[in-house]
């Protein structure tokens, strides 16, 4: 079980949290202006990297807030957690 540092509540066990997939995927501001490729990319395509992965988590059984997490998908080590809206930190 991971120990995850919520930016608002501090370190808590993983089962207080709910992961919500890859971070920094912005919904196109005008979906009807998107072509099919751009919409497919937004809806379905994921980088799924082997290495540093920026992902959204929600502190579901805590403060209830969404935040972002940079995690190494090889070791599962959490590199950083940061509030939603901030830019992704460097991997090291």
């Amino acid at each position, binding site marked *: 079980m991971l120990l995850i540092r919520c930016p608002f509540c501090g370190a808590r066990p993983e089962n207080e949290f709910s992961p919500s997939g890859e971070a920094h995927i912005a919904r196109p501001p005008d979906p009807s202006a998107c072509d099919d490729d751009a919409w497919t990319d937004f809806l379905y395509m994921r980088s799924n*990297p082997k290495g540093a992965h920026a992902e959204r988590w929600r502190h579901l059984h805590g403060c209830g807030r969404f935040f972002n997490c940079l995690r190494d998908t090889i070791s599962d080590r959490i590199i950083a957690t940061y509030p939603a809206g901030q830019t992704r930190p460097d991997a090291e």
Partner: protein
Amino acid sequence: MRFSFATMLRQAFTGNAWPEQWRSPEPKPTYDVAIVGAGGHGLATAYYLASEHGIRNVAVLEKGWLGGGNTGRNTTIIRSNYLQDASAALYEHALKLWEGLSRTLNYNVMYSPRGVLMLAHTEHDVRVFRRHVHANRLAGIDNEWLTPEQTQRFCPPLNVSPDLRYPVLGAALQRRGGVARHDAVAWGYARAASALGVDIVQNCEVTAIRRDAAGAVTGVETTRGTIAARKIAVVAAGHTSVVMAMAGLRMPLESFPLQALVSEPVKPVLPCVVMSNTIHAYVSQSDKGELVIGAATDAYTSYSQAGGLHVVTHALEAICELFPTFRRLRMLRNWGGIVDVTPDRSPIVGLTPVPGLFVNCGWGTGGFKATPGSGHVFAATVAHGEPHPIVAPFALDRFRSGRLIDEAAAAAVAH
């Protein structure tokens, strides 16, 4: 060497060591087809390319050892009772091949159609499974509904008491479903493919995909040198996103750890496969006597081949609730595999936007059951350069067209 009773006898009396069952050649500089990944699906693809399409100048490139990924890590459940017509056709194609596979390969894959029970614990489950039963029967696939009493008669150790937190309200039973010996499937296909001239190259990691000016693939860079091929078939399961990124493609995949574990071996106690999606447990008994138990995927993506202990604990709690007699069994080993999951929980098999590059992935938590069918239709797709009719609905392009094949109800976790 052809296996038969006479061969067995001769070996037993002469005491000779069994010879190697497949060649381990140095890679040649050029092949007609390079398959990336020597798991069950990749080896089956190679075998059917050679045996049904006459394409024998084939390399199967494997970064580790053959059958060392999800093929050697899954819980070996075989069934074909999927809801959607396209899925039912694909998995039923595989099930029909399972039935004759040991004979086809001259290798005992120990396919054992002992029946797969899928338990319903809520009113919603009951309705969903009965719908599955009806849909399957219309498609000519065996699947039947059992009451709790019939369920217990079919599986005596199962606790169907109404006192359970989630009591068993019935079950869908596919009698032709069952299990097979996972390693034997990889070894059987490897042996048969190798005998037809396919080169299986282990410890050979693909590090880049080469393309010409028009964008078509021309070969791969590997840790054992450059290998030219006009057709590249990626069958890399959890690592598909990584390999496809070498050709500049993003995939609708996320990779999750999926865990399984086995108990100490005991005498035959569990006559069938039991799956419960709702309380999340699936279990069968191997021929060695171990209970083979499948847990859930972890909630986050990972390539670590190890998941959280709480996920395993959850599965064991469900098993102990369903089978009180198993409570004192000790668990011997647990492990994880990395499964590639698609948004609609259906696989992706077919062509890609890159000419000459084919992909077979997205089998998620339940690819083992499809191994022969997947290899069979994918080989036809690679050989002809167009999708085999059974697998045409599973093209990568469905995420653009919106024609998804939603199997989340059948396969959300226990596939």
